[in-house]
């Protein structure tokens, strides 16, 4: 159980995290979602007491992180796969972590086995691929067999097999009753793994909801219509009290009316339809709409004209 209360972080003029309050519960995977620069990593670093909050507090099972005397056995975290000394072998990297928390050295072999790095245990991690680095980072997180696990963008740079492995790992960890908190900027990834969603944008909380609720409320379903007699079709629908939106390319979109009803209506008036298809907006679109106002780094299709650099600060 992680409780975040009124957490804020200011870097100079920029408020990177703005009064965040939410809870991460055991037994489920909680997704921490937001566009790049939303403050996800900063929030996670504050959870681990690496960054000092400007205001607010984080409690891990009711305690401050600094008060956990053997933190690896409470919280396992993967912040950055590259957060290790490349000159040290995978085995020694994990060994020094285990020793600092009084964890028996035999655990090192076990977690190396879990993540499938036993064969390269004695190799220096400098030569590891990004995916192997992620696995080593996860091995470090699992070392203390903790109740709480935190992963910052764990699927970044992984191949499909690795992504599949991480998804299943997170689900099985949650199924064992652990608290799993995972950040991502990809809605589609979260839709596959998370049971609960915490969405932030520009450091502010945008949504704190179960995945099912998020899908229900945010995935707009509509019917797309195309007809050579578009004007007549529009009049007919209008007379029936149905709101129509013209969506370019000669298509019409109707919200909240079943496609069967629309088809029958067109048939009654002997209108030719070239398309009558129920559509569902993707979660990715829903996410983009939710965070539209708070995306830090917009890509512009045209070169910016004399506006200068709009935003300051960065992901770190």
């Amino acid at each position, binding site marked *: *159980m992680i409780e975040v209360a009124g957490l804020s972080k200011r870097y100079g003029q920029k408020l990177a995290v703005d009064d965040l309050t939410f809870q991460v*519960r055991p037994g489920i995977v909680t997704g921490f979602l937001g566009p790049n620069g939303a403050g996800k990593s900063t929030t996670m670093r504050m959870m681990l*007491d690496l960054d000092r909050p400007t205001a607010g507090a984080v409690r891990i099972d009711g305690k401050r992180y600094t008060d*956990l005397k053997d*933190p690896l056995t409470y919280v396992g975290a993967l912040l950055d796969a590259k*957060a290790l000394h490349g000159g040290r072998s995978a085995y020694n990297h994990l*060994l020094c972590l285990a020793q600092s928390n009084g964890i028996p050295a035999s655990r090192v072999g076990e977690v190396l086995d879990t993540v499938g790095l036993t064969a390269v245990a004695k190799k220096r991690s400098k030569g590891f691929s990004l995916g192997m680095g992620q696995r080593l980072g996860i091995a470090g997180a699992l070392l203390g067999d903790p109740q709480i696990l935190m992963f910052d963008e764990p699927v970044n740079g992984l191949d499909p097999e690795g992504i599949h492995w991480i998804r299943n790992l997170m689900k099985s960890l949650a199924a064992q*009753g652990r608290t799993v908190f995972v950040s991502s900027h990809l809605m589609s990834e979260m839709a596959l793994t998370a*049971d609960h969603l915490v969405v932030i944008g520009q450091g502010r909380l945008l949504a704190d909801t179960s995945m099912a609720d998020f899908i229900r409320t945010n995935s707009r379903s509509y019917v797309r219509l195309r007809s050579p007699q578009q004007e007549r079709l529009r009049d007919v629908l209008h007379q029936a009290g149905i709101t129509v939106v013209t969506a370019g390319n000669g298509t019409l979109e109707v919200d909240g009316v079943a496609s069967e009803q629309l088809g029958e209506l067109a048939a009654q008036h002997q209108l030719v339809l070239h398309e009558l298809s129920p559509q569902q907006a993707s979660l990715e679109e829903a996410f983009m709409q939710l965070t539209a106002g708070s995306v830090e780094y917009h890509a512009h299709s045209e070169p910016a004209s004399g506006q200068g650099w709009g935003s300051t600060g960065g992901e770190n």
Partner: protein
Amino acid sequence: MTTPSTPQAQYGSVSAPEQQWQAQTGYVSPVPLRRATLKDALASEWTKIRSVRSTLWNFAVMLALVLGIGTLIALALSRRDMPPGESAVALGFVGVLLGIMPVMTLGVMTISSEYGTGMIRTTLTACPSRARVLGAKAIVFAALTFVVTLVATTLVSAVLLFSLGGRTTGALWGWATVGVSAYVALIGLFALAVGALLRHSAGAITLMIGFVLLPLVLALFLAASPMHGLQDFLLEYSIPSQLGVFYGTSMVQGAPGGWEALGIMGGLTAVFLGLAFFVQDRRDV
């Protein structure tokens, strides 16, 4: 995982009773738990320092300089070259002075490489007490440096004494081995503190080399100027002449003795380590 799974109540909805969570802490680990102590941190830092190549390289260079230069001097000189009343042990000075450089480099790297690689975030996640991490690093590094330097200085003193002869006293032998090793360990510790403050390898190493060499160079430039007071001060308290004190040689008459040299370096190191403890506790990583 080798751990048995523990089926738990599902917390599917947001409305789960919040006040009850402590009773339902979910997963319970079979890994034996005990509170981590400074001893654990020391074991961890020992694993760290022995498992990177820079430790091996820097100490190898240090040993090569101390033993190599000492042996060369022993070969180049004969017993007749030794001035009466001077001990051959004192000729080990040049090698040790140069050997300080790799020790300082290692001292800086012991902490700054953690910042450079990002390892520090992993380290502090595992051990949130930053004072304990820095303390364990300082103890392990200083102890290792002392032992390695003691081996080097003892060997080189024995080689010089054996081949060049001359008289030596127990006190001089002690200062040239144990005293010098303690002094070198303190300089290394000072470098570690500077590395912790700057968090940048190249910058801290450059600063430390300047700290050792600059006062002496400056003093040479001041030779023609009327600032004799400052020149004497720089000559007396520069690292090379402070190190010379341990061998019974000094550039200036009435320069401080061995205990005083250790005291000065110890005080300086204590101040900078204290500063490092203070600053790193307030910084974001």
